[in-house]
């Protein structure tokens, strides 16, 4: 739920980084915090356990520039990835404008990824939100690890696509960031499907972190335009 404040001339949007435990959600925020100009960001709030596992959420507000004289403020949140914390994870989704699913590319984490994705769909549905119609993208993190699964495998497991029901949208939509790939396409069975855009990242070194933030912010602003 974006908030437009005409008095302070601000557009406030909420972006949530979701995904399995130890997948790099907090690392994404920490990198953003470390790299943006201090005057364009607020405090990084972390409600974490003593072992630095996210207990409730991390929070970082960042300003990404001005549009039509309105300052665009993005409130970035992470959720606790551990299965155990679902009650608090669900709370963070309240009023979300855009979602980044941070997937762990390691082959061994495939099941955890799928569980987290299912949990995301379930929690969103409980709020009455439809993930397929809102700004949503997937970041495949830890691409540098030797045990990283291929993008094809990750896409098949986590982003197989949802059915397009609106006839007006039944036309091929090329993926602007991956030449030769389609965001909307017709399967050989005749069915039209749409996939969430994806990006690759190595959050620990910052690779792909800003690209992800920019991509999701743009989707959010365009959804308001």
């Amino acid at each position, binding site marked *: *739920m*974006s*908030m*437009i*404040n*005409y*008095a302070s001339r601000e*557009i*406030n949007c*909420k972006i949530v980084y979701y995904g399995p435990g130890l997948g790099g959600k907090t690392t994404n925020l920490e990198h953003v915090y470390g790299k943006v100009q201090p005057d364009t960001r*607020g*405090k990084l*709030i972390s*409600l974490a356990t003593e072992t630095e596992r996210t207990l*409730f*959420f991390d*929070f970082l*507000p960042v300003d*990404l*520039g001005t*549009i*039509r004289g*309105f300052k*665009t403020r993005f*409130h970035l949140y992470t959720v606790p990835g551990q299965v155990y914390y679902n*009650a*608090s994870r669900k*709370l*963070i989704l*309240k*009023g*979300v404008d855009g979602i980044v699913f941070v997937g762990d590319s390691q082959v061994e984490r495939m099941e955890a990824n799928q569980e987290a994705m299912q949990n995301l769909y379930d929690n969103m549905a409980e*709020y*009455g*939100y439809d993930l397929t119609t809102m700004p949503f993208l997937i970041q495949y993190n830890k691409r540098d690890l030797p045990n990283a699964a291929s993008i094809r495998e990750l896409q098949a497991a986590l982003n197989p696509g949802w059915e397009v029901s609106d006839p007006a949208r039944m036309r091929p939509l090329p993926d602007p960031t991956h030449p030769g790939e389609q965001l909307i396409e017709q399967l050989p069975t005749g069915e039209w499907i749409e996939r969430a855009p994806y990006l690759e990242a190595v959050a620990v070194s910052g690779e792909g972190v800003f690209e992800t933030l*920019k991509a999701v*912010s*743009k989707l959010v*602003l*365009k959804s*308001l*335009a």
Partner: protein
Amino acid sequence: MSPPVSAASWSFTEDDFGAITKALERFLADCNARCALIVDRTGQLVATVGQRPDFDPTAFATLTAADFSANDQLAKLIGENDFNSLFHQGEKESMYLADVARRVILVVLFDSRTTLGLVRIKMRQTVVELTQLFEIVFSRGGSADAVPNILAGADDEIDKLFQ
């Protein structure tokens, strides 16, 4: 069952802001509290009135919303619909939080210059007043007829911002 905490888009105008601010200023004067904040349930700070807080208000708003949401869930676990107000007592500073129209939270910071009893009584009246104001704002929603969509047709500008 109480209505769900809705997440539909909403926006308020300078007139709304003026009316909300006026109600809060009156409330602060009546109960001698230091500062009042309005935070929406998603953690966005809507308004601050009174003595300027010397902490980061954005972080404060986020934690307030999280605090309220966590307590809501605790209420449900013990068979209550919600806790419509919360009180946190400190040695010098205390805060009182109250739900307004299921969508925003009124937070009042006060010290020993007033008492919890007075704050609570005055807060009750203010919550009624704010509920009426916010219900008008929410009933209007984020609809384009009421408030022009400032981002309409701004696609090029958005593209430029992220080049």
